[in-house]
């Protein structure tokens, strides 16, 4: 099933008309039809450019949640070789919302961890909609410590609406699992590159988000609270999510301006869901560059820079 976002509907309509015209032209080519096709192609390109280069934050949030958007394991497949998935936190269980393992990223051996969403009900049951339990965060830390031990850099791919707010998660101390990662990641003696590839949902995102370089895909968002949650509290209704998205300054561009994000990873026109390969190539290059920038830093300097990076965040008088 193809998911068409509200603001993309005029584009899809034009695309369908164009298809129809092309079909007619293919059946019975005429000069008139050829001119019409060319004209419509031009109009489509203009419309796409107009819509996609003026996206408001709420539209980006919708793109970041698009069901056809490449997910963590899609990027692993497209960016990495020899992925070896490793399971379990060694205490309670495995968390399929947070796959992790060894991978080779553009020739570099790395440990990669991230959130994985599902595209249909069956997948979402398995992946818990990308909302990890404490076991996911603890597995992530276990593997990041392996990375430190074997001197492999770490790549984290963030894509979660938030950590799971469930009874078991609370009983097994989801808050501590996240907090402990924040503390421990600050001191891991190996380079860390974090990329928000889709949804950067609050503490659940930050729980694998302490890094030497924090990148964001062009249409990803990163926020302390979901726009709907913020709207429900401040405007008393979720319908005000678009205003909340604007107010929260959650887009890659806004967050770069606030000094939270070090780089924006470009996406194909209209978003990564239109072209997985191009999006993946873009991500692959950006992460490889960040890893290259970090790999020769002495570890003391790396850790000082990481500390100072987060130490400097916040504005006050």
């Amino acid at each position, binding site marked *: 099933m193809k998911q068409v976002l509200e603001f993309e509907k005029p584009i899809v309509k034009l695309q369908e008309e164009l298809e129809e015209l092309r079909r007619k032209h293919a059946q019975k080519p005429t000069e008139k039809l050829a001119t019409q096709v060319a004209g419509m192609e031009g109009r489509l390109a203009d419309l796409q450019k107009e819509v996609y280069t003026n996206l408001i934050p709420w539209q980006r949030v919708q793109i970041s949640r698009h069901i056809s958007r490449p997910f963590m394991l899609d990027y692993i497949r497209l960016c990495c070789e020899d992925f070896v998935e490793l399971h379990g936190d060694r205490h309670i269980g495995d968390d399929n919302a947070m796959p992790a393992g060894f991978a080779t990223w553009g020739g570099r051996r790395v440990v990669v961890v991230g959130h994985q969403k599902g595209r249909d009900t069956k997948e979402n049951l398995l992946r818990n909609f990308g909302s990890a339990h404490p076991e996911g965060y603890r597995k992530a830390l276990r593997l990041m410590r392996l990375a430190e031990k074997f001197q492999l850099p770490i790549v984290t791919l963030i894509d979660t609406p938030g950590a799971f*707010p469930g009874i078991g998660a609370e009983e097994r101390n989801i808050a501590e699992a996240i*907090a402990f990662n924040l503390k421990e990641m*600050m001191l891991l003696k190996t380079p860390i590159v974090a990329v928000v590839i889709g949804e950067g949902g609050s*503490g659940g995102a930050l729980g694998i988000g302490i890094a030497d370089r924090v990148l964001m895909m062009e249409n990803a968002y990163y926020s302390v609270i979901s726009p709907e949650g913020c709207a429900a509290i401040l405007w008393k209704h979720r319908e005000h999510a678009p205003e909340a998205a604007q107010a929260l300054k959650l887009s890659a561009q806004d967050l770069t301006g606030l000094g939270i994000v070090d780089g924006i990873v470009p996406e194909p026109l209209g978003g990564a869901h239109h072209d997985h390969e191009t999006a993946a190539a873009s991500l692959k290059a950006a992460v490889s560059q960040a890893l290259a920038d970090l790999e020769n830093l002495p570890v003391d300097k790396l850790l000082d820079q990481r500390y100072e990076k987060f130490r400097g965040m916040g504005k006050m008088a």
Partner: protein
Amino acid sequence: MGIFKKRSVSDLGEKKKDMPEGLWVKCPSCNESLFQEALAKNLRVCTNCGYHFTISSAERIESIVDTGSFVEMDADLDSVDALGFKGYLDKVKAYQKKTGLMEAVVTGRATIESCPALLAIMDFRFLGASMGSVVGEKITRAIEAATAERKAVIVFSASGGARMHEGILSLMQMAKTSGALARHAAAQLPYISVLTHPTTGGVTASFATLGDIIIAEPKCMIGFAGPRVVKETTHADLPPGFQTAEFMLQHGLVDQIVERKDMRSTLGALLKYMTPCGRTQAA
């Protein structure tokens, strides 16, 4: 009432009843009418049933430090509207006027039973003690001072979570405070986290759960997600006492539940084991 009887955040609506102009206040737990002065003398704990009322940061400090030993730090740090968030600064100003506080946390140096420590005391009366840049910065500075001076840190938490009016900057205070604690811990210095009613969200998911020792006040609410969110997400009945101090103790998530009247002596006893101050006294 059962040991799992839970306080809801809406209990804090008690604030009006809690600190009224009048001479008497009604205990929200046992309905006993309490004489204000007697309640204040009893550290704002109900003399009838032991219910712990919300307490101001000033009263909290007085109740735990050696008399006159507290010296406040960074008292002037003020919030700014970094995001252009409509109405935010008006809100901050209103709370400053109402509480007489600059922000939702008071930090400083003190001694507790003669042991020196850096303190951070959150005050729920100020915007639900939500964590924005100033709260994160003051706590981070207190931790960094403790690391530099080789002292213990004690944080009394109470918070509705991250302050959404500061957006991502609030979220990053979790990273900042936890990072400072990482360095403090690497220097082998002790951190005691005390959880009070209510401790939730981004504060729970950062410094509040990172203590070498974690203490909770009786019956306080502690959690990551709010109980309503958990209920709505899981469509399940919440277990009795879910997200209370007693529930946390039962699940092995806190070291002790300590009543307010015993807090000072408990902190003193712990500091004597975890810092050199006990050893020098013995010598």
